[in-house]
């Protein structure tokens, strides 16, 4: 718990995302069609729906470059944890299979996040997963 209150917090990347003209500070979720405002508590780089955690494949290598012409839906695949305890959401595009990561926002659905976090432990159909769970 103490690791999150470190004095020198990791600085956020400067915001360079260019949103399309005519967009009025919100986007429509590709998964559940929820209208999501761009302003989010805890992060200034919201790219996924707080309800279903789905995102859209618009960026290639640099966040905000809008260089990908895939435009596929990106579903939340797993969670990873930074050394300072922050959760990163890992998305995978359902069209081209590319991976991307984004920090979780303060208003993300905690039930969906925890369901994602316990998913590796609940998967008992895989041979490797079952053996790991049985041995430890």
């Amino acid at each position, binding site marked *: *718990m103490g*690791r*999150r209150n470190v004095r020198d917090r990791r600085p956020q990347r400067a915001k360079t995302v260019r949103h399309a003209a005519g967009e009025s500070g919100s986007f429509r979720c590709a998964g559940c069609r929820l209208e999501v405002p761009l302003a989010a508590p805890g992060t200034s780089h919201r790219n996924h729906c707080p309800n279903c955690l789905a995102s859209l494949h618009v960026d*290639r*290598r640099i966040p905000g470059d809008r260089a990908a012409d895939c435009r596929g839906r990106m579903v939340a*695949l*797993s*969670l*990873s*944890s930074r050394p300072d*305890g*922050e*959760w*990163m959401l*890992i998305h*995978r595009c359902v069209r081209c299979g*590319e*991976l*991307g*990561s984004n920090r*979780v926002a303060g208003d993300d659905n*905690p*039930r969906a996040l*925890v369901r994602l*976090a*316990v*998913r*590796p*432990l609940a*998967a*008992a*159909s*895989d*041979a*490797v*997963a079952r*053996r*790991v*769970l049985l*041995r*430890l």
Partner: protein
Amino acid sequence: MSTTDSPYEPSPTLRTSTFTCLRCGLSVSALAPGGERRDHCPSCLTSRHVVDQVRGGRSDCGGRMVPVSVAVVRDGAWMLVHRCTLCDELAGSSVSRDDNHLVLMRIAVRPLADPPFPLDLFGEV
């Protein structure tokens, strides 16, 4: 289970080739026990950035890739997600049977061990 139950016989080059882990220096056989090609060290799960995930094909980066998370694909199998320490690119690779169970489990439970919000709230709802 032996390697002979795979649908194809691995080529002699794949059967004898090895690579050295970038992190722990272990000499690893390129052939996994399941008969497929291995792309990460079974001891520390570190990989090397040789495949360009965005364009496809070879990558010139060659950086060390550290395992960041364990994902579950649709059929319930585990998948390991790597992140390159040089260029921050992400890549997914399948888990092989002789991968280090302790390290795998550590990566899988790491988000739950230090959650950003108190998890005991879920006992009440």
